[in-house]
């Protein structure tokens, strides 16, 4: 016997950035919403913590931007491009605050507290938030069904619509017959730390040295999220008991001021060190069907190196919420605009991610020489850095030429 819930408009499965923001928006618009999240409480499961200005714009439209600011987001204003191909004192700095009107720079934030606040906001707007929902099972169709277990009890909901937002695990997608093609370019590791009192909190770093691509994203008050991307062949490098200290020690980098002392000598772990394959996912079947629509990573995503997964998730959610709050037609055809926009967007993001990964996440003398050449090209002609715009403005606002094979060829031409 299971407990049956009636009168539910939408069930959102997965309370990450995509799901929680959607539940908050739909509930605020008067729909009856149930949000199912499998974690008992929000923990640091190591997800994106750097959100692009264009993603923040999506959050504003969804009405969830305060969850970022209040949940500990810190606006980063500058990006200093330290890299082994340039002397520390000569690295150039980009002002990131002026790309999207009405939004400042990108933000760095503790992911789980922001999700928690969004879920709280959804609850305050009338949604039912079920933490610790186990074994969620979705059946698609004109009358979709969601079954799950909570505190040992079985539940059944027959909503009008299910939003699948379980992230890269693609649980709902698999249940409704959507499979993913994947490709892995490199691996990554992430750790949240405190104690960076001597690191300028306005400045982020993203660069490559030897066999690692490093990132420092300040979260204010001496806290930062550190990432290192490294070759798949080295994927054991941070495993084991000493992994965490090796990870921190690897921020001793000749290309940073003072060899990165402000990081490697000061960082105190604030959470787990998580290692993952940086995977790009391409859905092999339509992500919309009768009674079910997929959003966020569950709908496919670009390589994390680009740092646009969060922005994409919010864009997906916004598009889907617009359909669900905009009228009574919730049939697959009502989502055509979402599908078309997503297709266009993901093509651009995959294209850009390939360029960035090739440029920053390939290692060794040849790759360094390539980076040096590309940097010279960019210094010569600013237009060559067009791909970097994907971090700041939405894909449709990036000039077309940045997505042509001709451009990629020019950029990587091994001889000038």
């Amino acid at each position, binding site marked *: 016997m299971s407990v049956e819930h009636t009168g539910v408009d939408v069930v959102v499965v997965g309370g990450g950035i995509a799901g929680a923001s959607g539940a908050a928006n739909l509930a605020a618009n008067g729909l009856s919403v149930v949000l199912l999240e499998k974690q008992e409480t929000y923990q640091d499961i190591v997800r994106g913590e750097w959100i692009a200005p264009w993603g923040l714009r999506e959050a504003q439209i969804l009405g969830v*931007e305060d969850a970022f*600011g209040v949940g500990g987001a810190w606006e980063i204003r500058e990006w200093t491009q330290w890299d082994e191909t340039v002397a520390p004192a000569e690295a150039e700095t980009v002002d990131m605050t002026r790309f999207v009107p009405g939004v400042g720079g990108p933000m760095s934030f503790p992911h789980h507290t922001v999700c928690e606040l969004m879920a709280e906001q959804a609850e305050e707007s009338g949604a039912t*938030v079920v*933490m610790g929902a186990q074994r969620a099972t979705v059946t698609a169709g004109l009358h979709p069904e969601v079954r799950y277990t909570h505190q040992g009890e079985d539940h059944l909901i027959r909503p009008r619509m299910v939003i699948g937002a379980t992230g890269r695990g693609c649980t709902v997608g698999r249940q409704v017959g959507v499979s993913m093609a994947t490709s892995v370019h490199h691996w990554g590791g992430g750790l949240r730390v405190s104690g960076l009192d001597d690191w300028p909190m306005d400045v982020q770093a993203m660069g490559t040295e030897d066999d690692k691509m490093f990132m420092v994203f300040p979260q204010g008050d001496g806290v930062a999220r550190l990432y290192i991307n490294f070759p798949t062949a080295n994927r054991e490098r941070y495993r084991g008991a000493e992994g965490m200290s090796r990870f921190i020690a690897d921020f001793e980098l000749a290309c940073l001021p003072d060899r990165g002392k402000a990081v490697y000598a000061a960082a105190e772990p604030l959470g787990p060190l998580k290692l993952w394959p940086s995977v790009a996912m391409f859905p092999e079947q339509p992500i919309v069907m009768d009674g079910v629509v997929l959003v966020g990573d569950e709908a496919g995503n670009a390589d994390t190196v680009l740092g646009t997964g969060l922005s994409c998730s919010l864009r997906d959610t916004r598009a889907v919420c617009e359909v669900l709050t905009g009228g009574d037609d919730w049939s697959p055809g009502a989502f055509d605009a979402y599908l078309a926009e997503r297709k266009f967007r993901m093509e651009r993001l995959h294209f850009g991610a390939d360029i960035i990964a090739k440029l920053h996440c390939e290692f060794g003398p040849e790759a360094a020489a390539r980076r040096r050449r590309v940097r010279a090209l960019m210094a010569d002609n600013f237009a060559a850095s067009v791909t970097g715009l994907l971090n700041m403005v939405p894909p449709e606002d990036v000039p077309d030429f940045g997505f042509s094979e001709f451009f990629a060829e020019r950029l990587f031409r091994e001889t000038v």
Partner: protein
Amino acid sequence: MTTKDTLLTDSAHVNGVDIAYVDKGEGDPVVLLHGFPDSHYLWRHQIDPLVEAGFRVIAPDLRGFGGSGKPQEVEAYDMRTIVNDVVALTQHLGISKAHIVGHDWGAAIAWMYAFLMPRRVDHLAVLSVGHPGVFSTPSIEQRAASWYMLFYQFPGVSEQLLRRNGWRLFKEIMGGEGDHQRYPRELAKPGALTAALNYYRANRSPESELRVEGNFPPVLAPTLGIWSSGDKALLEEGMTGSAKFVKGSWRYERVEDASHWIPLDQPEQVTKLLLGFLGTEKAAAVPTRRRRL
């Protein structure tokens, strides 16, 4: 869904506003008044030790903060109105005389309460903020020193400006002090930021600072002043200079290794100072007003 940061036990409608408060323990009453942008929760480390030491602790959320009502008009935050909230709340609780303890704006309210209502005050303990007679003539140095003053230097500081870009300006002003991670959460609640800023708007606008406000009645209660050397907002002179406004006995304690938020940064020391002071002296003999026959 999450555990809320609250110890509140009750709420009462007094002086035209809902005031939420902690009422705990039995014995001589102690009223704890928080400042900007706190709530009763500022006193979380002091409440239980005071109760265990035999006091009845009353810790309200001042109007505009925490669980209390948040009128949106500036006029609702005049200092006298807030003093009257405390009078009305204590009356509601059947308390005629209490020890009054205040921090930050709460200290300013405590001072005013003490010189306007001498009969209702047993001992007075003020943290961080000195007597308004000293405070109303800040030196240039004091003005420049502080986030506290930033609000005066930018009289147009607006909700929008503070919230923009993920509350960036607010976070810069606050730095890593006090309950800095909790404040934006509290202030993001409907009407909360406007209410909190109204404290600054209703009181001590730059113009009113220029007005010389002489003639404060003396404070008759035994008074303890506490200031912390890590206070980036307020100078020590503000507190030590308060002595001349106190006719009762005056004690001054300087606390090291604490920011402006002394009750959070040195919780045990604050508790100890309060326990070593409250109720230890004879309360002020307040001259009865001569009645004309």
